[in-house]
C-alpha cells in the first residue's frame, strides 16, 4: 500500500498522479480513471485545507467476483466534521467553495465511507471498481 503525505498543493498534485497510475495499471476505463482522480483531488484538498494536512493511502483490492478495485484512504487529524449529513449535502460549504467537494466525490466513486470525530480528525475511504 502506497502512503503519501499531504502537506501542500504540490502533494495534492502528486496524489492525483499516483491515483491515476494505480487506476490505469489496474484496468479502470479512462472515464473511471478520471472520476477517481477527480474524487481524489477533492478529498486530498479537503485533507489539506480542512484537516490541516494528512495522509493518503492507495491500495489495490479484489472483489469476491474477481474484479479489481482501487481503494483510497484520506486521513487527517484536523478539527473533524460536526454534522456528517450536512457536510455531504450538495451546496453546503464550510468555506467559500461550491460545496460540491465531498458530495461530488461520493457520486464519482462506487464505495464511500466517511468517519469523523470532532477534535480528533476525519477519514474518508473510497473504492472504484474495474468493470
Amino acid at each position, binding site marked *: 500500500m502506497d502512503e503519501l503525505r499531504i502537506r501542500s498543493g504540490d502533494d495534492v498534485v502528486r496524489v492525483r498522479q499516483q491515483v491515476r497510475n494505480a487506476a490505469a495499471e489496474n484496468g479502470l476505463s479512462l472515464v473511471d480513471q478520471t472520476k477517481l482522480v477527480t474524487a481524489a483531488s477533492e478529498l486530498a484538498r479537503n485533507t489539506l485545507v480542512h484537516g490541516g494536512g494528512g495522509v493518503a493511502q492507495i491500495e489495490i483490492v479484489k472483489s469476491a467476483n474477481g474484479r479489481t478495485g482501487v481503494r483510497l484512504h484520506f486521513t487527517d487529524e484536523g478539527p473533524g466534521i460536526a454534522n456528517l449529513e450536512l457536510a455531504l449535502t450538495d451546496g453546503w460549504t464550510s468555506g467559500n467553495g461550491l460545496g*460540491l467537494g465531498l458530495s461530488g466525490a461520493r457520486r464519482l466513486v462506487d464505495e464511500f465511507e466517511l468517519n469523523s470525530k470532532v477534535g480528533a480528525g476525519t477519514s474518508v475511504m473510497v473504492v472504484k471498481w474495474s468493470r
Partner: protein
Amino acid sequence: MEQVPILKIGQTLFVSIQIDLQDESVMRLQEDLADELAATGANGVIIDITAVEIVDSFIGRMLTMIGSISRLFDAETVIVGMRPAVAITLTELGLSLSGVRTALNAEKGLEILNGKT
C-alpha cells in the same frame, strides 16, 4: 508553483494549460489574466484545456470566475478542448461551468469570439 503563460494574438488572449494544475497556479492565472485584460484591452480569452486530465470543483469554480472577471473587462471567455472523460466527470460532479462559453477546439473558439461585434 508553476505558472501558466498568456499569449496575446490580435485582440485575443490565449491560455493553453499544459501543467498539472494545483490550486495556487489557477489562482495565479486568474490574477495574471485580469492584469493582462486591463493592460491590453483584449476582448476575448481562449483557455485551451486539451491537456488537462481533470477538472475538479475548485478548478471548475476558478474557470467560471475567470469568465465573470473577463466580462467586467468587456471580454468573453471560451473554454476549448475539454476531454470527453472530463466532461462526463464534471457533469456527475454537479458542475455546469455556467457563464462561460465552451467550444470543441481553439479554431471554433476563435470563431465564437470573432462573431462578437
